[in-house]
């Protein structure tokens, strides 16, 4: 076999913080052969994107390569002159960014940006590359391929832009493409069609690719081999099937195990029991436009109701109606059989206390200028009237409850905590009010998988101990599978389907639920191929949604 296309040896990269250089990548090797797809996975801060860019001989501002070598097809990229590198970039090495909406220049049409690389690198004439662009759009199954390129980026949807960017990367038929989390910002039903398009085109042109992602199930579909990174170090590398079936390192095993966490099924609810929370026929509007239509569901004591749906489906709006931030136009909310005032300002302290909330972004949910003790202590004092030593005792108990060492954390500021720890503080603040019911709004979606699993386990433990009820808002069906007792599926402000979890994951269901469920990538490397065979190539993603 010939030399690898990309050969990285002992790559060391440093980033600048506070005027000093700290290592980000501590000596990573990488080999990639022609036509091969390497999946680069790891949690945030693992250095995936940095390595991806370094493979192009590129570093961002404030980052520098401090050692090692990067060779592309025998060319030393680190020693090459700027002109030589420019000759390779765009022509033989291309890049697909995470946010296509931000990475397309808003001032130019898609096709003009598409033809830029071929014309500037003298690969083909403008008219040739326009034709080729239209052909690529067609192959990537973009709607109206003849016309879509003549639009401006803001006139095209996110999933379509992501495919247009893949087409742009293909414009010079490069030997290597770096995909940097291309589907992370997309909804599941959109993600699937982008994945299918990318995989097909890479296969068709036999292009080598580095596919960067944090999502194991996605990388299982795309890659021939997988490299796992942790904090700038390589954990292990193997071909995809071996890696999935028999990981050798503990870290990799723990990543894999996250997917298998699932709570035991609880006994069914008595039909006579009064639900803790009842959402009764709620219709709500922002301004004059209704965003929720006649939403009804109950949440019973000690149970978790997962509300699922894609962005814009009205999940969070429902939560705002329950807490009273957005008073419903029609319908009402009951706590324990008692009808609540619609506006939170009209509710009394005890009514406010009953429903607590945990937010998605722990960063914005905790006041950065207050110590942990103050943040948790405030509801203790406000609702329970505890002061001084009693208050401190209660705060310490709460910290112990969320598995943080009280004396060590009580005087810290939120900025001195990790993401998962901040989310735990958010939980403690909700617990401090001694509520019966907690709304969890996408609490794990901003966290790395292992950390998220810890949070889910903590929430489950607290539910068992304190008999709490949860409304769990999420778009991630793996989370639903792990923690929910009941599921409410929402789409465009309406409840599409609701019921026990077990029933929801068994067919038959509403076609939208079906689509949503089947679009969630699974760890099986054949999942995408099977699904495409099942649905037919033209019946995925937006196309499938439109057909409903």
């Amino acid at each position, binding site marked *: 076999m010939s030399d690898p296309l990309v050969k990285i040896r002992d790559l060391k990269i440093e980033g600048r913080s506070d005027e000093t250089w700290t290592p980000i990548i501590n000596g990573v090797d990488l080999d990639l052969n022609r036509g091969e797809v390497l999946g680069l996975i790891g949690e945030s801060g693992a250095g995936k994107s940095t390595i991806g860019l370094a493979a192009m001989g590129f570093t961002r501002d404030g980052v520098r390569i401090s050692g090692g070598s990067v060779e592309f097809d025998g060319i030393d990229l680190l020693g090459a002159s700027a002109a030589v*590198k420019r000759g390779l*970039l*765009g*022509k033989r090495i291309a890049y697909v960014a995470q*946010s296509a909406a931000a990475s397309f*220049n808003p001032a130019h049409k898609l096709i003009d940006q598409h033809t*830029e690389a071929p014309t500037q690198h003298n690969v083909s004439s403008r008219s040739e590359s326009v034709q080729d662009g239209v052909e690529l759009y067609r192959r990537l199954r973009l709607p109206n391929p003849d016309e879509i390129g003549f639009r401006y980026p*803001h*006139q095209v949807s996110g999933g379509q832009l992501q495919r247009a960017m893949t087409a742009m990367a293909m414009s010079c038929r490069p030997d290597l493409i770096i995909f940097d989390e291309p589907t992370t910002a997309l909804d599941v039903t959109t993600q699937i069609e982008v994945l299918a398009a990318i995989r097909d085109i890479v296969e068709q042109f036999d292009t080598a690719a580095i596919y960067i992602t944090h999502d194991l199930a996605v990388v299982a579909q795309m890659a021939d081999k997988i490299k796992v990174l942790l904090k700038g170090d390589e954990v292990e590398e193997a071909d995809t099937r071996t890696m999935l079936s028999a990981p050798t390192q503990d870290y990799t095993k723990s990543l894999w195990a996250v997917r298998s966490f699932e709570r035991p099924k609880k006994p069914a609810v008595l039909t006579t029991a009064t639900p803790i929370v009842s959402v009764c026929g709620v219709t709500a509007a922002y301004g004059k436009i209704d965003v929720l239509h006649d939403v009804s569901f109950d949440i019973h004591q000690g149970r978790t109701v997962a509300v699922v749906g894609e962005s814009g489906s009205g999940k969070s709006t429902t939560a705002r109606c329950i807490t009273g931030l957005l008073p419903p136009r029609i319908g009402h909310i009951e706590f324990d059989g008692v009808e609540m005032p619609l506006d939170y300002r009209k509710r009394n302290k005890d009514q406010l206390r009953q429903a607590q909330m945990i937010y998605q972004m722990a960063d914005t949910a905790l006041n950065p200028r207050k110590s942990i003790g103050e943040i948790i202590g405030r509801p203790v004092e406000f609702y329970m009237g505890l002061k001084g030593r009693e208050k401190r005792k209660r705060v310490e108990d709460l910290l112990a409850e969320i598995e943080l060492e009280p004396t060590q954390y009580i005087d810290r500021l939120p900025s001195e905590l990790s993401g998962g720890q901040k989310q735990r503080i958010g939980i403690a603040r909700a617990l401090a009010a001694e509520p019966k019911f907690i709304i969890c709004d996408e609490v794990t979606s901003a966290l790395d998988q292992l950390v998220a699993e810890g949070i889910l386990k903590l929430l489950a433990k607290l539910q068992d101990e304190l008999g709490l009820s949860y409304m769990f808002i999420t778009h991630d069906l793996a989370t639903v599978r792990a923690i929910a007792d009941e599921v409410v599926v929402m789409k465009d402000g309406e409840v599409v389907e609701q019921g026990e979890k077990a029933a929801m994951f068994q067919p038959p269901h509403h076609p939208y639920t079906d689509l949503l469920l089947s679009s969630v990538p699974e760890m099986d490397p054949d999942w995408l191929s099977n699904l495409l065979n099942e649905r037919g190539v033209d019946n995925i993603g937006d196309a499938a949604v439109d057909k409903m």
Partner: protein
Amino acid sequence: MAGILKIVAQRLALGLITLFVVSIIIFVAVNLLPGDFAEAILGQGATPESVAAIREELGLDRPPVVRYLEWLGNAVRGDLGTPMSQALFSAYSGSNAGSGIGTVMEQIAPRFRNTVYLAGLSAAIAVPISITLGILTALYRNSAFDRAMNIFTLSSISSPEFFLAYILILFLAVLNPILPSLSNVNAEMSFWSSERFVKTLLPALTLTLVVTAHMMRMTRAAIINLLASPYIEMARLKGMSPMRVIVKHALPNALAPIINVVALNLAYLITGVVVVEVVFVYPGIGQLFVDSVKIRDIPVVQACCLIFAAAYILLNLTADIMSIISNPRLRHPK
């Protein structure tokens, strides 16, 4: 295209309303004078006859709303009233002052020309320099050049205009007699004559110093913001030359912020002009304004105030509309 026209029309209407409100504020402010200002202006030497004469002359015996509407109506037609000095003169001499010599408009018109010339010259020097330097500091940010420029611009922003003016006089007029320190331009000098140019150069340079600093810093911030965009990184990753990245990818998007910066700073010139004109004894509106303030010539003060405010609003409006027009999202709606 219809959408953008609508937005522009809205902004224009808003500008008109603002101007209208501003005229009310100015009118109300002037009417805050205790008693009426005929009395106040004449002060100790007021005789009942002279007070009555001024009152009639200025129409102070009628209700404020009528006076406001009349003042506004006249102002729109270009009649800004009679200067107090003229009214005083007529009050004492008994002749009808409204006729013939010296309306406010006649006082202001030639000075307005001069001020526009001064501001225009400053802008012509300042805009190209500051945009070039602003882009350069953004491209070479955190270099020694950038830091030196930062110190320079901070210092010149911080200095009062008269300090900069005296420094320039000191070095360019007194120690090295290159330019005249007095800007006694007059109506005989044609608009494009070199004499007028040379005499205006020193005040124009002073204004340039102040405005350049502001404009440079704002341009720099706008460009840095832009260069951090993912699409600029994308262009570089497509192997485009630095020149092409700037011209093709950064510039079309930088246009809006830069135009904004320019218009905002031209608006800033309006304030700067007042002090600089006084230092150089330049016969512009600013000097007239300050002189009138000192002798409390209310009609002239009112008129100057209205002109300055109108220019200020107009420039801010231009900035607003330009940035709307240059925004591709608005130019090509979905």
